[in-house]
C-alpha cells in the first residue's frame, strides 16, 4: 500500500496554511479509493509541468439521458491508469442545498461504492458533483441514486439544473418561495433537463430579493428575482432603536439610497416609496425596522451568460412584476414561447441573450407576445437607425 502511494512534494505544499486543504481531502479519499492516488499523481505532474493533463471530453452517460455526466479521460493513461476514465456525475441538488445527515450519508455510501469518493459540494450551477468515476460505474451508480430519490442534473444543450437561494426557508426578505419555484421548474422540465433538444444550455436561477444571493442576474438565462410593489414596511420604534444604538441614519442609510428618496429629521424616517427602486440597502442595514412591502412577487429577467461568444451578459428586465401567486404559471407560459422561438431561430451554441441581441429585443418581444415597456431599457435608443414597420 505504502509503495503505491505517489510522492507529491508540490501538492504537499498545499496542505500547509490555515484554510482547509483540498489536497488533504484527496489524500483522505485515497485511503479508501485508489483512483485518488493516480489523481494525485497526475495533479502533481500538472503542478510540475504547469499544464492540465485531461483530454477533451467524450460522450458518455446513462441510458436515455443526454446530460448529467461529463466524460473525462487522462492524457497519460499508461502512467495513471486509474484515472484513465475519470467522469463526473452531476447529481441534482435539493432546492436550497438543504440536507439531513442521513441523506448525506446515503450519497457518500453510493459514491464510495461507485466512484472516487471525491465530490464538489457543490458545482457552480448548483449540482452535487460526484468527481471521477469509470464508464461502467455510471449506470449502477445512477440506479442506486434514483432508488434513493436522487436524479442527475444537466449538462450539454439542455435546461440546466435550476437553483435557488435559501429564500423563505430562512430569509425574512424572500418575496416569493424560491425553493418551491426551483423545485417546480425542475420537475416540470425533467425531459428538457435530461434530453438535449436546445441550441445550447438554458439556466434558471431563483433569488428571493434583489440581493440576489444566487447571482441569478449574472449566471442564468432566466433570472427570477423577488421584489415588491407597494411600500416598504416600516417600524418607527425599531428605527429609533437603531438610532439610539448609534447608527447614523442619515449617513449610513439615507445617503446611500440610490434615489435619495429617504429623509431623516433626527426622529422620523420618511421614505418616498414612489421613488424607491427596491435596491434593498436600507432594509439590509436595518432588518429589524424595515421590510419589503406586502404586495410581493418577482421581476423576470432574461439572458445572462458567460463571455463566450458575444461577451458576458447580465440578464435584462423582461417582466417588471409578476405577483408571487402567478409566478409558476407565468414562467411556464413565457418559457414555452421563448424556447419555441429559440429553437426555431437560435444558432448552434447561441444562448438566448445572444439571440435577443442578434435579432433585436423588439422583434423578440413580438415573437413571444410581450408589449414593450420602458422598464426594459436603461434608456431609449440614441441612434436614429429605426426599422419602421410598413403597416404604420
Amino acid at each position, binding site marked *: 500500500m505504502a509503495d503505491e502511494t505517489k510522492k507529491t512534494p508540490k501538492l504537499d*505544499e498545499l496542505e500547509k496554511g490555515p484554510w482547509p*486543504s483540498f489536497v488533504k481531502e484527496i489524500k483522505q479519499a485515497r485511503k479508501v479509493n485508489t483512483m485518488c492516488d493516480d489523481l494525485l499523481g497526475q495533479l502533481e505532474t500538472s503542478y510540475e509541468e504547469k499544464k492540465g493533463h485531461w483530454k477533451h471530453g467524450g460522450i458518455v452517460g446513462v*441510458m436515455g439521458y443526454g446530460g448529467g455526466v461529463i466524460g473525462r479521460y487522462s492524457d497519460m493513461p499508461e502512467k495513471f491508469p486509474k484515472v484513465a476514465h475519470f467522469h463526473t456525475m452531476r447529481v441534482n441538488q*435539493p432546492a436550497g442545498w438543504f440536507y439531513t*445527515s442521513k441523506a448525506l450519508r446515503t450519497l457518500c455510501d453510493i459514491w464510495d461504492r461507485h466512484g472516487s*469518493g471525491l465530490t464538489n*459540494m457543490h458545482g457552480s450551477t448548483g449540482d452535487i458533483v460526484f468527481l471521477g468515476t469509470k464508464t461502467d460505474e455510471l449506470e449502477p451508480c445512477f440506479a442506486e441514486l434514483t432508488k434513493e430519490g436522487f436524479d442527475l442534473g444537466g449538462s450539454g444543450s439542455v435546461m440546466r439544473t435550476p437553483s435557488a437561494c435559501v429564500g423563505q426557508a430562512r430569509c425574512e426578505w424572500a418575496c416569493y418561495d424560491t425553493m418551491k419555484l426551483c*423545485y417546480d421548474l425542475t420537475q416540470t422540465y425533467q425531459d428538457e433537463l435530461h434530453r438535449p433538444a436546445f441550441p445550447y444550455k438554458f439556466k434558471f436561477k431563483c433569488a428571493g430579493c434583489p440581493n440576489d444571493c444566487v447571482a441569478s*442576474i449574472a449566471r442564468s438565462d432566466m433570472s427570477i428575482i423577488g421584489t415588491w410593489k407597494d411600500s416598504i414596511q416600516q417600524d418607527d420604534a425599531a428605527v429609533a432603536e437603531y438610532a439610539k444604538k448609534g447608527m447614523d441614519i442619515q449617513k449610513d442609510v439615507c445617503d446611500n439610497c440610490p434615489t435619495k428618496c429617504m429623509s431623516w429629521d433626527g426622529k422620523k424616517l420618511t421614505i418616498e416609496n414612489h421613488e424607491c427602486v427596491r435596491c434593498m440597502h436600507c432594509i439590509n442595514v436595518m432588518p429589524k425596522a424595515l421590510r419589503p412591502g406586502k404586495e410581493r412577487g418577482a421581476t423576470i429577467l432574461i439572458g445572462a451568460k458567460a463571455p463566450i461568444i458575444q461577451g458576458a451578459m447580465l440578464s435584462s428586465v423582461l417582466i417588471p412584476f409578476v405577483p408571487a401567486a402567478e409566478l409558476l404559471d407565468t414562467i411556464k407560459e413565457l418559457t414555452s414561447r421563448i424556447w419555441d422561438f429559440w429553437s426555431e431561430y437560435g444558432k448552434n451554441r447561441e444562448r438566448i441573450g445572444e439571440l435577443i441581441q442578434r435579432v433585436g429585443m423588439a422583434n423578440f418581444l413580438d415573437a413571444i407576445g410581450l408589449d414593450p415597456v420602458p422598464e426594459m431599457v436603461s434608456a431609449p435608443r440614441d441612434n436614429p437607425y429605426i426599422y419602421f414597420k410598413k403597416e404604420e
Partner: protein
Amino acid sequence: MAAEPVKRITDIGPPHYEKFLHPMVKKNYGMWKYHESLAPGVLCHVAESGDKLFTVRAGSPRLLSTATIRMFADLAEKYCGGYLRFTSRNNVEFLLDNQANIEPLKKDLQAAGFPVGGTNNAISNIVHTQGWVHCHSSATDASGIVKCVMDALYDRFTHENLPAKLRIALACCLNMCGAVHCSDISILGVHRRPPQINKDLLPKVCEIPTLISSCPTGAIRSATYEGKPSVEVVEEQCMYCANCYTVCPAMPLNDPENDGISIWVGGKVSNARSAPKFSKLAIPFIPNEPPRWPGVVDAVVNIVEVYAKHAHKYERMGDWIERIGWPRFFELTGIPFTRYHIDDFRFAGTTFARSTHIRF
C-alpha cells in the same frame, strides 16, 4: 453483468426539499421576521412566532471527500438534529435551535480545521471551478490557487472588518464557470498563444463549419491539409479564447510558459445601492507559479488591502473605484495601466472616456 433487468427509475428530479428541512424551518417557513449577527459566521434568524434559528457557517474547500462529508454529518447530528445545508458559495451551514450548542460546534469545527466566518463584511469563500483537478480546458489550476489566496485572506474570512462584502471568484478559463465576470475580485485563467492545430486529428474529430463559426473574431479560416479540408488560424486575429478548442479537441491552446492568470476587479451581483456590474481588467497577466502561486496571492492581497484602507463604509469594490476614478485605482494599487486595459471588443466604443472629467 447479465443480471435480471431492473425497472429503471428516471426523471424523478431531486428529492423534495421539505424532507430535509429542520422542524423549526418548516414551522416558520415564509414567516421569518428579522435576523441578527451574533459573531462572524454566526447568524440568528427570528421568526414572527418568536422562534430563533441559529446558523453557524464554516468555510470549505468545496472539493470534499466523503470522509469529510460524513464528519459534517456527525457534527450535525451532535449539535442540530442532523440538519445542515450548503450555501451558494460552497460554505457549509449548521442550523441550530439551541444557542448553547454554538460554541461547542465552533470548537469542533475549528479543531477539524474548518474556520467559522464568511458572513456580512467578511470575505466569503471563493467560488471556483475545476482547474487541473478535472477540466481539459483549464489555463491554470483552480483549487490550488483558492487554497493559497484563502490562506492569505484567512483573517478576512473570520473577521467582518471590510467596508462591505467582498466576493472573490476564480475560473480556470474564459468559459468562466464561476460567476467571475461579476465579482469584486476575479481570478481568471488565460491563454496567450493561438491553438496548435493537430492537423491529422482534426478531420476525424471536428466539424469544420462549426469550428469556423465558433471563433468570436473570425480568426479561423478554411484551408486544406494534405488534400483534405482543414483550417488555419490567422494569428493576429486570435485572442486565445479557446472556444475553438471547446468545439474541437484538435485545437489545444495549453502552453506552460504562456498560460497564466489575469485579475479583474469591481464587479458585483446584488442590486444593493448600485446596479449589478461587470468586473474590469486590473492585471492582464501573472504567470502560473505552482505550488503556492505567490504572484496571484500578492496581487489579490494588495487589492484587498488598498480597498480596505480607502473605501467608505458600505462601498463595494466597484462603487469605491467609480467614486475615486480608475486612474486613482491604478495609482493606489501600483498596478501599471497597459494597452491591454483598453477594450477592443464589441462595445469598446462605450468604454472610452468621453468627457473632460479628469482628476489631476
